[in-house]
């Protein structure tokens, strides 16, 4: 059984306006799918919807052939969603933030795992500084450290490149490509041209 997230005839309406209608989408192992569209075209809404957060939509979602509502828990155990707001607590250190996220997925984990994940996103030496004192890009990197720390096959990333410097962008692109090559899949929104292999499939909204 490989990974397969499928949307059939997806439609979503906001304030009397259809953001998208009749959207068909299939994401399998090894796919990198990029959602494109101008501001306000519903990219974030689509990602939230695919992440199982919203329920006011039309159409159907399937996870490995079963309706998403019925296998929600299994789906969530395989999903890593990074939203528009990074979900990182300003009053905690990067290590404490990651410890909570590891615990949320049910693992106790250990400090050396978390340290090496922070090292990998270039935050070595900042592990005990309160996140509120880090720069916007560094805060985003704390969230990105979860990609290394938590093993989840499906990544849903909303604007992950925001506030990240050029080296960070290249490293993240390499990480997305490596994830797809090892059988995972990535669903991403971004305004910059993704340079990854396998090449990203584009879905145009708006």
């Amino acid at each position, binding site marked *: 059984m490989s990974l397969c997230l499928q949307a059939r005839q997806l439609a979503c309406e906001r304030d009397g306006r259809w953001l998208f209608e009749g959207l068909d989408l299939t994401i399998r192992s090894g796919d990198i799918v990029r959602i494109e569209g101008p501001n306000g075209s519903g990219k974030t809404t689509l990602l939230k919807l695919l992440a199982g*957060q919203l329920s006011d939509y039309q159409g159907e979602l399937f996870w490995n052939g079963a309706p998403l509502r019925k296998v929600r828990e299994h789906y969530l*155990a*395989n999903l890593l969603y990074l939203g528009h707001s990074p979900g990182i607590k300003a*009053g905690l250190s990067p290590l404490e933030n990651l410890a909570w996220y590891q615990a949320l*997925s049910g*693992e106790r984990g250990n400090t050396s795992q978390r340290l090496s994940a922070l090292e990998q996103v270039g935050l070595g030496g900042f592990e005990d500084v309160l996140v509120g004192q880090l720069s916007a890009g560094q805060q985003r990197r704390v969230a990105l450290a979860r990609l290394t720390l938590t093993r989840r096959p499906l990544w849903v990333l909303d604007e992950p490149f925001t506030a990240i410097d050029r080296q960070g962008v290249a490293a993240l692109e390499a990480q997305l490509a490596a994830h797809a090559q090892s059988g995972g899949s990535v669903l991403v929104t971004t305004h910059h041209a993704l340079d990854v292999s396998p090449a990203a499939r584009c879905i145009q909204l708006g």
Partner: protein
Amino acid sequence: MTQGQKATSTILETPVPGGLWVAFTATLKRDVTLMFRRRGELLNPLVFFALVITLFPIGISPDRAVLALIAPGLLWVAALLAALLSLDSLFRTDYDDGSLEQMLLAPQPLAALSLAKVLAHWLLTGLPLALVAPLLGVTLALPLGSYAVLALSLLLGSASLSLIGAIGAALTVGIARGGVLLSLIILPLYIPVLIFGVGAVQAAVIGEGVAAHLAMLGALLAASLLLAPWAIAASLRISING
């Protein structure tokens, strides 16, 4: 089965058994740590409670007989309002920085995670209020012998208040200034707790049995422990959806 199929079949994760307890304790620890790092906010309800109670003897009358009559009601009402004051921030920061969204997407029951958050809130607001109340009872000339009952009734009652209040906090978290709405939703639900809480202390003051009142407070707590987590989880889902 070929090699390739084997590789892809192992990548899917299943929810970790026993993970719920790990997530529960981690959430509790996280919230307690966060609240301790904002000590000013932590002291707010206690300071409010102490101020209100010390102002009453000055404003009404220093007469011991008058004060002893109204002391149970005053202490309970002030503690209730102090608890209400602290509720608005329960889910607010998590909502603002996106971690609430992540809690909803965790492969753990949201009700259990919300319960951990409420427990942290109670440990750092309800519990200190209950412990400080006897001390403030002295300034209101609360008759001897009713201090233990006051603390016990607040201990049981404030836990219900936190649980019930969290439902309102969850419902109003998506609204920019939900404070007033929160009070309007929650205050009617607080009234049974207030009635039996004050009843217990008054019974102790006049020397009657307190067991019935305390048992009712216990029953209210048991009911809210059973039902509130689900209501909080459902309310959070509604708030995130909007």
